[in-house]
């Protein structure tokens, strides 16, 4: 037999840790939300905000300040100069807030400015991206729709699959769809729509006693909120690849949660203990090896991506690192306690339902 990180007879009282876990989660979420409020919402990259980004590679080291002063003459609106990627790559990222001036004009101005301001330094414009304001707004709406549909479909799947209650799941979907359409009709902003969708989903799960779905969704929202919050705290920008990372985190976090839930369900059917808290604790302990191993290997490769993947993919890997870490934590310390908090009566009904089925 190979190595074992977790001894088979491990009995950690995870449920007993729930108050502390609650405090930790609350602090992280509040910190992130606080940062979002302070910054007036997430910091959008050009995908969502519109504007022009130019990536320039120099053949020797140049400071941000030098580049800044070389481009002073060019008078580009809202010009931001920052170093990019690894230090020895000698890469600089330039961005302007306006997409009103044409990209060729920006390219010309930058070339001219760098040529006259940094004599003797060779450079190459490696990448130029321009996103108009209309496309930016469209992409933003699409990204939010994507997150919303992902949560909805997954909630339906879990309720149907775990509790054999496809009908209740359908009611939830209908309720959510109706609620959002109503909010849209009275012309609410996207922020209101997101929060509306969240409250409706959680409310319906609670009312319909779809407790597995409720636990999973709360854990998922928890992970997304913390990842977004940490990104905001670090002053990172949100672009399309970050949305891709967030959706992957949704998938990963659910993956983790479902494996724990699956075991809880199996142990409830096997009547491994009369006490629900015990059953949950035993289940988490039984799956703990798997949870740690999978998170470990995933974190290993994501860390490799973070360290070696290059500047363009750097923030994407960072989002995954945070998300996978938080996702693992939440499946143990957030999702299961919620199942315990809302669970007993309904889960026992379920067991009878499943037995008779």
């Amino acid at each position, binding site marked *: 037999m190979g190595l074992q990180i977790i001894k088979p007879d491990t009995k950690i009282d995870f449920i007993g840790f729930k108050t502390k876990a609650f405090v930790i989660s609350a602090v992280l979420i509040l910190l992130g939300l606080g940062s979002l409020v302070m910054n007036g919402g997430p910091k959008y990259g050009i995908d969502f905000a519109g504007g022009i980004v130019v990536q320039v590679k120099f053949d020797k080291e140049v400071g941000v300040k030098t580049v800044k002063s070389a481009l002073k003459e060019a008078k580009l609106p809202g010009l931001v100069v920052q170093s990019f990627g690894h230090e020895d790559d000698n890469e600089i990222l330039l961005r302007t807030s306006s997409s009103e001036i044409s990209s060729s004009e920006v390219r010309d101005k930058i070339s001219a400015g760098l040529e006259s301001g940094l004599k003797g330094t060779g450079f190459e*414009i490696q990448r130029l991206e321009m996103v108009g304001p209309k496309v930016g707004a469209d992409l933003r709406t699409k990204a939010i729709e994507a997150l919303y549909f992902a949560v909805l*479909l997954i909630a339906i799947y879990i309720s149907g699959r775990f509790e054999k209650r496809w009908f209740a799941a359908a009611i939830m979907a209908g309720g959510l769809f109706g609620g959002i359409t109503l909010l849209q009709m009275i012309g609410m902003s996207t922020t209101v729509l997101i929060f509306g969708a969240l409250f409706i989903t959680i409310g319906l799960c609670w009312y319909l006693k779809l407790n597995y779905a409720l636990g999973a969704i709360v854990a998922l929202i928890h992970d997304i909120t913390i990842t977004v919050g940490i990104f905001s705290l670090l002053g990172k920008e949100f672009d399309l690849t970050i949305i891709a990372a967030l959706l992957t985190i949704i998938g990963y976090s659910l993956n983790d949660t479902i494996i724990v839930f699956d075991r809880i369900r199996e142990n409830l059917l096997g009547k491994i203990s009369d006490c629900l808290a015990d059953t949950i604790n035993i289940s988490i302990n*039984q799956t703990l090896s798997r949870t740690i191993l999978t998170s470990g290997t995933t974190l290993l490769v994501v860390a490799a991506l973070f360290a070696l993947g290059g500047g363009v993919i750097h923030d994407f890997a960072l989002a995954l690192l945070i998300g996978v870490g938080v996702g693992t934590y939440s499946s143990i310390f957030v999702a299961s306690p919620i199942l315990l908090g809302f669970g007993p009566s309904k889960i026992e009904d379920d067991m009878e339902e499943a037995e008779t089925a």
Partner: protein
Amino acid sequence: MNGSLRWKIVLTLLVVVFGVAYLLPSMPAVQNSGMARFLPDDKISLGLDLKGGIHLTLGVDMDKALDNNLSRMGDDLKAVAREEGIIVLKPKVLKGERVEAILLKQAQQEKLEKLVKENFGNLTILSTAVKPDGKVTYVFAPTPEYKKYLTKLTMDQAIKTIRNRIDQFGVAEPDIRKQQGNRIQVQLPGMQDPERAIKIIGKTAHLEFKLVDENADLEKAQKGIVAPGREVTVIMHRLPDGSYIEKPIVLKKDAMLTGEYITDAQTRFDQFNQPYVTLNFNSRGARIFERVTGENIKKRMAIVLDGKVYSAPTIQDKIAGGRASITGSYTTEEAHDLAIVLRAGSLPAPVKILEQRTVGPSLGQESIDKGVSAAVVGSVLVLGFMLVYYGFAGIVANVVLVLNVVLILAGLAAFGATLTLPGIAGIILTIGMAVDANVIIFERIREELRRGLTAKAAIVEGYSRATLTILDANITTVIAAVILYQFGTGPVRGFAVTLTLGILTSMFTAIFVTRILFDLYTSKRAADAPLNI
């Protein structure tokens, strides 16, 4: 070995052969060898972020297209009405997709309305107002069906024109497609001169021949005072240093001839090696050109492209034969590009660049190199870890992990999907997550072994209990990936495709293939032999 196991092995080997056959053509070493003949043609196509090139999103100005169309319909209405003896004053396009026409005699109202109904089914009468002097003002609007039809027609025409232009420009594998909201997405891999590409794609190329009004007062004209039926525009003059200056010029508004009759356009050089563009008209265009030049000898005719005058030569004689040339002061490259846009025809409406992404080839290669090295390091770490942690079972997991990556890449090639930088990240992430299914199974087998089951029984039990869990866990990830595909664009879609492929192949390899390896391993051993897991 029992029969079902044999069939499973055959199926697996088939999949492996398929995987290798589809993966090999994408390997640079294989592409140049004689082996390539025996392999499928499908290669992994690299996204623009890896290959370098230009991605453009163009917005077609549909309002302008509709206005142009309404203006033409107005002219038609006037002409048709005249044939019936109804006098309609020159119709005017109003704001908000409407066209106004004034009927001279109130008595002809019924006749006009009948004519509109019969010949202009695409127009509805919005309002009529009788003026004291007996004129009647009609306001028409296009029907919604017609607007829809026109939108589709304009988009199709625009795409066709752009495709023509790009084809003549000589870009390998351009990708041009219609998108929602009157948008066109253009991808030009390998193209490194975005400004030139944009100039060629974005030029409306509406060519007109108009007479110059020599008697107009230029100073007055510059202040905006022009006689009716005249317009002020600019003529381009190239200075010796290569820069341009624009000088005002007054033209007669009505075009004598437009670019729609052009059949061909070519670049030529005069005796001073100055480039110019020759045009060939079709027979109808040639007749018009002959008549117009004959009627206007010794007058200047301006050649107007997208509202700017390129040149305004004096007509020396009647020109027959349907050939004309545009001399002007431009570079060879500009003359060449001008010929391309004239040959490919004009865009039905102006286009605006909404989004532009240009990636240089060196950055693309750098991204591939970095992505590959991250993948190699990540994989080695995972492979090493699995080996140490699970012993024999770790080897099994590692074999299928390698097969999994082969299958993902082969799948990308077979389905013609595009590999993007986030796609590489997707593969790397899949490597990390792919062992999950194996870990679930192995942990379960360990549990069953601890409960005292024999190796064979533990394997059977472990697989049967773990399979449903794995399915549940992976379906939710697939849901997220499908949504990602639905709502994402470009690179993000590439990520979604690799993630989905990765999940499907990892389920096959982790559940099906590992089971075969375990069965093979245990089949020759005593029932109570220990299992190295």
